[in-house]
């Protein structure tokens, strides 16, 4: 009741809301278009303004038949989960130490890490490639995991060291009194308290890693190791834009997991950003 009367007092609010909804619809149209076109029959696919009259699954069948989507999904998931897992483990320890031990060595390392924020991965791509060859890591998912984790370290360490400052020192002192070693105290007591920072970190990195093309293009050429993105690009290159249907179906399948993840976590992401990233 109360809400409704407040709304009535403010009619510009509703007009504005309707304008925004229309804007959002136009803004999202390319995404509807992607999904729509992936269900259009081959006869209709070159009529961009036409609406499909029934769901045509042929493009999906063709895409799955030609491309090992499940393998791509597996590779992409292994690389995403692996690199973020590694990133969280080592950057939380590093950020914690930098915030807690005010010795010159650790402060120096902090600036060392932060300076990495301005080094683009592209600058080092050729030496990295050479190193991958020398270490027999080219065409392995492990290499991608190490690269992504290393590249995201500066931001992650920055966030964790900022977040550590909000954790009271008494917690560690009481853990030490209970006979916890430093290592156990960190993982069993401190790390769980860093959950908001960890959540933000995952949300900030998962999309970039999942969607990355540049890395797999350079370092993962073996078809059995390809990620979803390089599968799409490879498939498109092999079929030279003649057959858009299966490409669109592939795009939908590669995007769907992230969209689902985003819809379920978006509330948390907002909170995490407010708590973690902005206050730093």
């Amino acid at each position, binding site marked *: 009741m109360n809400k409704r009367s407040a709304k009535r007092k403010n009619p510009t*609010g509703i007009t504005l809301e309707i304008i925004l909804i229309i804007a959002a619809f136009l803004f999202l149209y390319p995404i509807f278009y*992607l999904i729509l076109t992936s269900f259009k029959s081959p006869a209709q696919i070159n009529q*961009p303004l036409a609406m499909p009259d029934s769901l045509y699954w042929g493009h999906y069948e063709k895409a799955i038949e030609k491309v090992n989507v499940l393998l791509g999904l597996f590779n992409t998931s292994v690389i995403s989960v692996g690199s973020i897992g590694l990133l969280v483990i080592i950057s939380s320890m590093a950020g914690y130490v930098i915030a807690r031990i005010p010795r010159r060595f650790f402060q120096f390392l902090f600036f060392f890490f932060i300076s990495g924020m301005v080094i683009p991965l592209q600058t080092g791509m050729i030496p990295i490639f050479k190193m991958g060859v020398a270490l027999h890591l080219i065409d392995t998912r492990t290499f991608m995991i190490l690269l992504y984790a290393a590249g995201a370290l500066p931001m992650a360490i920055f966030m964790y060291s900022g977040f550590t400052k909000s954790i009271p020192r008494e917690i560690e002192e009481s853990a030490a009194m209970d006979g916890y070693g430093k290592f156990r105290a960190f993982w069993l007591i401190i790390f769980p308290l860093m959950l908001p920072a960890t959540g933000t970190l995952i949300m900030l990195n998962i999309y970039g890693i999942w969607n990355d093309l540049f890395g797999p293009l350079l370092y993962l050429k073996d078809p059995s190791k390809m990620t979803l993105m390089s599968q799409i690009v490879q498939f498109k290159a092999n079929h030279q834009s003649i057959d858009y249907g299966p490409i669109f179906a592939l795009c939908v399948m590669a995007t769907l997991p992230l969209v689902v993840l985003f819809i379920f976590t978006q509330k948390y992401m907002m909170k995490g950003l407010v708590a973690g990233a*902005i206050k730093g």
Partner: protein
Amino acid sequence: MKASTREWWTGFWFILPATVLFSAFVFYPFVSSIYYSFTEWDSIRPAKFIGWDNYAFLLEDSKMLQAAKNTILITVFGIVVQNPLSLLLAILLNRSFRTKILLRVAFYLPVVVSLVVTSIVWGHILQYEGLLNGFLERMGLHSWVRDWLGDTRSVFPTIIALTQWQGLGYCAVIYLAGLQTIPQDLYEAAKMDGAKALNRFRHVTLPMLMPATTIVVFMTIVGGLKMFDIPYIMTGGGPGSASYTLTLAIYNAAFRENTYGYAISGGIVLMIFIMIVTLIQLKIMRRKEVEM
């Protein structure tokens, strides 16, 4: 062992894995890139030291110069157009609409969709026989119809517009997070002092949003300078070199033409770009933050 020494060693073991990984995969490749940028190197024969030749050649290479121009354009557009637009969007999305959550999700969704998929969908929409031209025809705007990606004059503005669409939600969400950290009593105090809406925006919202602005501008710069996927998939840099970006030019120099040393010198220039722009930006922002 003294307690502080023991603490130092614990810290050392804690920070060691991150340091090793960062040194091996970020710092070492960077340092060796600086060395290789002064060499002629095709990765088969050993690198030959040639001094500043690569850098001198960069300045004469019309493709590289076009790429640098395009890369700067993307970044400037991001800061001048996308940045204020995303702030406006954030302010609107911060109101208590009934469809607030839905609207936020809608405007953020393009960020979740990869640049690969974005390029493919938009590539289809922008074809000569595609959705956009079909729509324009139907609206009677025949003179607007063009080969958006095939024309040297329209290709890069089109790509810029696309990057703005893709990144708008990301910037808006950071501003939105920034808006939510502004304490409500600041507005109430300003109201009591008789400040009008526009003045409240200028003297409360904007200064309090400075940290968020710093992040947004930094992300826009880094994202713009790294732009690769869209021109790689949609145009391959063409027609001619009209849609080259620095990263694409570097990639081609290295993996198409096998001129590794030269490609790396382009990469170094890219990095110096990022550093200079970031430093200038941080200086300006710092000063603004102090002023307020």
